[in-house]
């Protein structure tokens, strides 16, 4: 057997070991597994995965856990489930769908205003386990809510998450994803968002943990939709964090803002790939993408790439990427006031991340992230 079929073979055993599900679900799983078997794990020859080698995930015989710490089995088919995150392109989405069992379903009825943030926490079950957390968020028209997804755990494990978010016309949704996986964990996740007319959606993806991380954050906009995709990634040691985003302006008068910031130290690797699609009739689109990276060591590597596909002619799209080091003059200024070299470095590193944190509208989350970041910077500045 080839390496690829060996890898698929392990998954097949896990797949067939699952208890049978209701017919609609079993059909969905079968189709998805078949697609996964066809696609196989991506390699670096695949443009979408050029800088992220998932071989370390592929070669482990993971035990797949049917249950997740959040979520419950579905009693009946959910019309939006698996309709947004496509299994055709991304083998990890196919794999997640093949193991679909528990689903965390969040329903916000039309017109509802949910003041308190809705918290979803996925705690990985343990050593050498694979889980496939699945979340479906459905927000009716003219509703308001905040959602916080947190991923964490201990030891070596594999989290393969898919989140689908459907936002009704005129709704305002604030989404936060906090990735705090263990240093030995693998984390692959896709968020697929479908946005209604005049909806306002913002997502903040904070990636702090994991050995090998890939986040796909994709949003499809409608007419007059405003979408913000922000991200902060912090990588040290031999961590690898890849953020791929797709903002699809499908209809006219959409606005999108994207700001991803990265802090890299040690021998860490990071990837940012931001695709912006402006469809033919998406006139008057206004889109801005920025990726900024602070590189603290000589051995850290960042690959950043904007990808603009603009098919309409009356649009404004800007993009920019920067890679910089700590400002030596600023560090000296702080030191000249008595602040120690290490504290100065912490302060400046923190300052770099500040504007992402300032945009977090859940005070408790902001506070806890500030604390986590400060601790992380301190670890970095050993």
């Amino acid at each position, binding site marked *: 057997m080839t390496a690829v079929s060996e890898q698929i073979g392990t998954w097949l055993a896990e797949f067939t070991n699952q208890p049978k599900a209701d017919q609609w679900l079993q059909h969905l799983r079968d189709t998805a597994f078949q697609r996964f078997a066809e696609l196989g794990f991506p390699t670096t020859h695949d443009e979408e995965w050029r800088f992220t080698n998932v071989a370390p995930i592929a070669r482990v015989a993971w035990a797949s856990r049917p249950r997740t710490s959040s979520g419950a089995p579905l009693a009946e088919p959910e019309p939006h489930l698996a309709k947004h995150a496509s299994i055709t392109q991304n083998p990890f989405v196919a794999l997640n769908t093949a193991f679909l069992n528990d689903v965390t379903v969040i329903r916000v009825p039309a017109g509802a205003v949910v003041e308190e943030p809705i918290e979803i926490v996925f705690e990985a079950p343990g050593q050498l386990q694979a889980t496939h957390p699945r979340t479906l968020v459905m927000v009716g028209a003219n509703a308001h809510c905040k959602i916080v997804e947190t991923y964490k755990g201990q030891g070596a494990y594999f989290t393969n998450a898919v989140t689908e978010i459907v936002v009704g016309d005129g709704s305002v949704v604030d989404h936060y994803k906090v990735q705090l996986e263990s240093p030995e964990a693998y984390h692959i996740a896709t968020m697929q968002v479908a946005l209604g007319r005049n909806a306002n959606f913002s997502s903040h993806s904070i990636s702090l943990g994991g050995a090998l991380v890939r986040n796909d954050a994709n949003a499809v906009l409608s007419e007059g939709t405003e979408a913000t995709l922000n991200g902060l990634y912090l990588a040290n040691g031999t961590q690898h964090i890849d953020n791929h985003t797709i903002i699809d302006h499908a209809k006219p008068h959409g606005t999108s803002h994207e700001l991803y910031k990265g802090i890299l130290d040690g021998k860490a690797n990071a990837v940012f790939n931001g695709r912006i699609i402006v469809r033919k009739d998406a006139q008057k689109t206004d889109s801005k993408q920025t990726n900024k990276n602070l590189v603290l060591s000589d051995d850290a590597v960042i690959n950043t790439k904007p990808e603009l596909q603009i098919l309409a002619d009356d649009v404004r799209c800007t993009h920019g990427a920067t890679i910089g080091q700590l400002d030596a003059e600023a560090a*000296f200024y702080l030191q*000249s006031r008595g602040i120690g070299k290490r504290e100065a470095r912490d302060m400046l590193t923190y*300052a770099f991340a500040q504007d992402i944190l300032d945009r977090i509208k859940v005070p408790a989350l902001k506070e806890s992230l500030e604390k986590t970041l400060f601790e992380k910077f301190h670890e970095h500045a050993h």
Partner: protein
Amino acid sequence: MSLLEIKDLHAKVADREILKGISLTINPGEVHAIMGPNGSGKSTLAQVLAGRELYVVTAGQVIYDGKDLLEMSPEDRAREGIFLAFQYPVEIPGVSNMYFLKAALNTIRKHRGLEEYDAMDFLNLVREKMKLMEMDQTLLNRPVNTGFSGGEKKRNEIFQMAVLEPRLAVLDETDSGLDIDALRTVAGGVNALRGPERAMIVVTHYQRLLNYIVPDFVHVLSQGRIVKSGGKELALELEESGYAGLGIEDDEEAVARV
């Protein structure tokens, strides 16, 4: 005992020697003005005293309060009471002025064996000093120097000095770019800090600042050396005859006299 003793100091940046043997003794309570044309090494001297790593000391000695200054890190120099008011204060987006200054003050107080200030004590101190510098209090909540006008940046330097209460203050062209009102305010702030325990080095290109901050001694720097020293009248002499009157050549002399 003198507070600062500079002996035959040589320093270079990259491969260019800028200071070529500076000797200077400063006692507590004294204000020394260092004047000189552009490129004479004034700012380099200020930066070397603060510990900027960009400049490499190749020879000489600096004794501060009985200790070898050149062996000390920039932060230790600050903690021991040296303060440099920057010619070009650095903008630091993302770090609030208040947070930064409180961290600085408490580090220095801790070093001096004093109790750290809590938020309330700090705010009271800061309000008082801001009044002295006629500064808008909203500047406190803004990031350090970010988006400040030239005048605001210079005031912010002297304000920091007032809060940190150094023993040796080095003012590097604090007058440059200030209009006359701002100059008076800044000079007022500096004069309020003069005292028998505190010494100052005022680096300036122009004599005008010295009308407001009257020095005890004036030194003229040219090509990395002190070529003339005297009392405050030396500054006036320079005002009349220019650096050329001392036989100092400077391509930028014409600009300097405007």
